[in-house]
């Protein structure tokens, strides 16, 4: 992992808008998908004798950066971006847990090459290690009861569109008792001219009762 250097950066300029809860701020419109309906396309190959190939979470392309100097320029408000992020997160979570349960071998395709996983305090870093890890993990049955997500502020991501996804539910690993779990992901968008592919940059998983296992 990279070193974390304390860096003094000037905070973004304060807006002059009133800060009541009903106000809408022009939140970094460049970062999020257009307000048109997000087309979620899930590419996956049905089980066959071939190798697994594509397993991705794909949405429509992100818009080109828009000048944000004028507060009135943006026709898109923060809530819309939040919604877009939510729908991407929703689709992602559906695919992720289904893949984990039913097509485990394809799971690492949802991760970036350098993604890291912290699984009950065990660190797994990079695709190779992730492959081994998921290979060795018993088969699973996940039930997600809670899903929350937030768009990650661009100051942290250096304009790389990122969504924080938080989930909770139950999981039963083969040969083990059922556990409640908490999990969170950092999803980052990789844009191509035709679409946006979302991948996991980071994954943190914990049993709620980890201490008693």
């Amino acid at each position, binding site marked *: 992992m990279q070193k*974390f250097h304390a860096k003094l950066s000037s905070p973004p300029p304060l807006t002059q808008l009133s800060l009541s809860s009903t106000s809408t701020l022009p939140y970094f419109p460049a970062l999020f998908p257009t307000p048109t309906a997000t087309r979620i396309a899930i590419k996956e190959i049905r089980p066959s004798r071939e190798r697994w190939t594509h397993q991705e979470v794909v949405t429509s392309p992100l818009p080109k950066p828009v000048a944000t100097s004028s507060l009135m320029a943006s026709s898109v408000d923060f809530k819309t971006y939040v919604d877009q992020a*939510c729908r991407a997160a929703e689709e992602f979570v559906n695919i992720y847990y289904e893949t984990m349960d039913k097509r485990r071998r394809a799971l690492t395709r949802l991760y970036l090459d350098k993604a890291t996983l912290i699984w009950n305090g065990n660190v797994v870093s990079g695709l190779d290690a992730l492959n*081994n890890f998921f290979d060795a993990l018993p088969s699973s049955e996940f039930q997600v009861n809670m899903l*929350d997500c937030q768009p990650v502020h661009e100051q942290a991501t250096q304009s790389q569109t990122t969504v924080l996804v938080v989930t909770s539910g139950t999981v039963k690993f083969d040969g083990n008792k059922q556990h409640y779990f908490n999990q969170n992901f950092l999803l980052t968008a990789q844009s191509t001219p035709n679409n946006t592919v979302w991948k996991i*940059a980071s994954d943190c998983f914990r049993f*709620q009762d980890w201490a008693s296992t």
Partner: protein
Amino acid sequence: MGHSDQVVRRRARCLDMYQRRFSNVSQPVSLGMHSSSHQQQDGDAAMQGAHMESPVRYTPYAISPFHRRGSFLKQDQTHVNMEREQKPQRRVEVNRPHGTLGSWFKITIPFGIKYDEKWLLNLIQNKCSVSFIPVEFHYEKMNATFYVENASIASALKNVSGKIWDEDNEKISIFVCPDGIPHSVQRELKPEKVEQLAVNQQQALDIQKLPIYSDFMTCDTKMAPNPRKGVAASLHAHEENIPKVMSSGEMDKWKGIEPGEKCVDRSPVCTTFLNNSSNINSILELFPKLLCLDGQQSPGPTLCGLEAHKRLPTCKGSFFGSEMLKNLVLQFLQQYYLIYDSGDRRGLLGAYHNEACFSLSISFNHGDSALSILFKYFKDNRNIKMLQDPYLRGQLLKHTKRDIVDFLSALPKTQHDLSSILVDMWYQTEWMLCFSVNGVFKEVEGQSQGSVLAFTRTFITTPGSSSSLCILNDELFLRGTSHQRTQSALFTLVPTPFSSSMPAFSQEQKKMVKGFSAQSGMNFQCSQKCLHNNQQDYSRAVPVLAPPKVCVPMTESGDLAGAEKPKPNSQS
């Protein structure tokens, strides 16, 4: 049966081929086969002689590959019966020099990468009833593996599984596969011998245990110098034996499934499999029905249960990227919760970025008592899974530090137990530090005063001014506590000297203690201590609460459900 003559003739022919092929196998092996079947006696005497040499029973593996699957199957029907009656106890005593033909077994210790080679082998040997020579010990992915050249040794090793423990007192499993030839052995063998070895191995299987597995064994592409040839060769061998496998009593289960179909398409099945566990998983994925068919028959682990060797990694405590980051985060949390618990959360304005985001979510996993406490958070619960309305989804996300702090200030006053928190630092870059905090806190005011909740709080921070962290994203997840967790929560944030003599508790206070005890699962004594440590709450609480409201549901008579009726003169 009409086919019996044909079978006998074929057997004779194949036997000849077999003998020619393997006449160099000089070491005798004893078989526990009993020729009880009259069919066998009708067969060749030579066949019995051949049995002296072959590791296991006769199989028509040398039959022309052009022979059609269908008839092969039928002919085998009689062969089936014979074999079943015989119930061979195959004991392969091997006295052959290393490198010649034999039955190789691959022994796998899952997560064996944790263990030192010598230590592990000693441990196993001490427990194993037979002495074994591990060949080509190496670590493969997360496992430790080696080979042994004997079915009975392999069997003995299998028996050791689960009977040995490592230094962490965790059971060590041993997994045995009749598969794979050590590379050093492979190199010495010619291709046709390699093929025979594959056949031998398959024959050596206890078919009743792992029928499918034998068919789809790893076709090790390294088996022959020319991988294609090797695959084809081994497939050939396996193909011939497919009906053999089926015919060991499980024909019925294969109704509706054409075994031939599985064999015909050669290349993809074998070449993509890298190791046994991938093998099995892929099979399971490809043929879920097989799984079900097979499950009942296997005496040992089912095909699914081959996963029994897969174990969950040990759960560990907090993870920090480094000591420096650990200090940074702990310091941040201390400051944060000092303000958070102080009664005035406006100080948190300095902790949040101007455009920070915050959201709250709750879960009702842990029973009714938690439900009543969590109820007040319900209106702010942001569960995207349940909440479809985009407007509400947006509303429930607090945005800007002013909104966030306003919201947090409206939540009940709390007391967090930092001594028992768990932190996972899951991402960091130059501009971003992300971590999750797991712990418990107590609400120290309001209707649910004294109730304990568990939380998981996810922070995404960036370096702020004055070397502190600036919160960009904050997600708070709340749930009830299991009794276990509460007992470990010590609430030492506000340590007060605890005198041995308990103060005289008023009736209300006793009820409150009972309520807290019932809700938290602590025993009465413990609850008292807990509340006593926070004496200031009593002084505030007692005048306010009349009758005391606790989070345990009340019965109609006004007593606490589940709590004992307080006796007038009872000692606490």
